[in-house]
């Protein structure tokens, strides 16, 4: 399966790319894709617990199963600042 990965804000800077294309085996979960990316880009690893994950523009859990052509977004927490 071909998966498009989008990176935003500080993660885009850490990885040095805005979009990645990855091939993964059928039926893989988002967590598996993510494990591979964190090995590939160790500077992302420290953010694993706080990152927001979306598939096709919906927030999902890492257990989400991916399908061919999915758009995965890996995002830092949104803009924040105290209320």
């Amino acid at each position, binding site marked *: 399966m071909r998966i498009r990965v989008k990176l935003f804000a500080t993660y885009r800077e850490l990885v040095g790319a805005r979009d990645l294309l990855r091939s993964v085996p059928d039926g893989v979960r988002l967590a598996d894709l993510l494990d591979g990316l964190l090995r590939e880009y160790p500077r992302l690893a420290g953010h694993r617990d706080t990152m927001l994950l979306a598939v096709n*523009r919906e927030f999902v859990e890492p257990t989400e199963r991916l399908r061919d052509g999915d758009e995965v977004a890996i995002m830092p927490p*949104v803009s924040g600042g105290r209320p």
Partner: protein
Amino acid sequence: MIGIQRRRIDIEAVVASVRRDDAGAVVLFLGTVRADPGIRALDYEVYRPMALTKMKELAGRARTKFGILDLSIVHRLGRVPVGGDSVAIACAAAHRREAFEAAAWAMDEVKRIVPIWKAEAAQTKRRGRR
């Protein structure tokens, strides 16, 4: 009105977008770029299609949750100078209590679930403040 735009936010237009004859209250919230030390501007980055979807969803949820009449959200993209509005939320309701509550809730939700990030704009050589 749901929007993400590079140009300045027209607050009259945002307010006008929620006005209705059955409203007794309109609340407008503006998030503005604050002159924190060393800050001259912020750069906003957006995951646009997802941000638009989430903004529409949360405006719909606000209508149901608070019984308000209408809610608009407009966010800037790109560079916003100190003093500029980075986001505007307008809400119309029959009575003021729910208009205030819905506008405050909507802004909390924007900060929680709408994929928009801000970063300090790169410093220029100029020393003067706007």
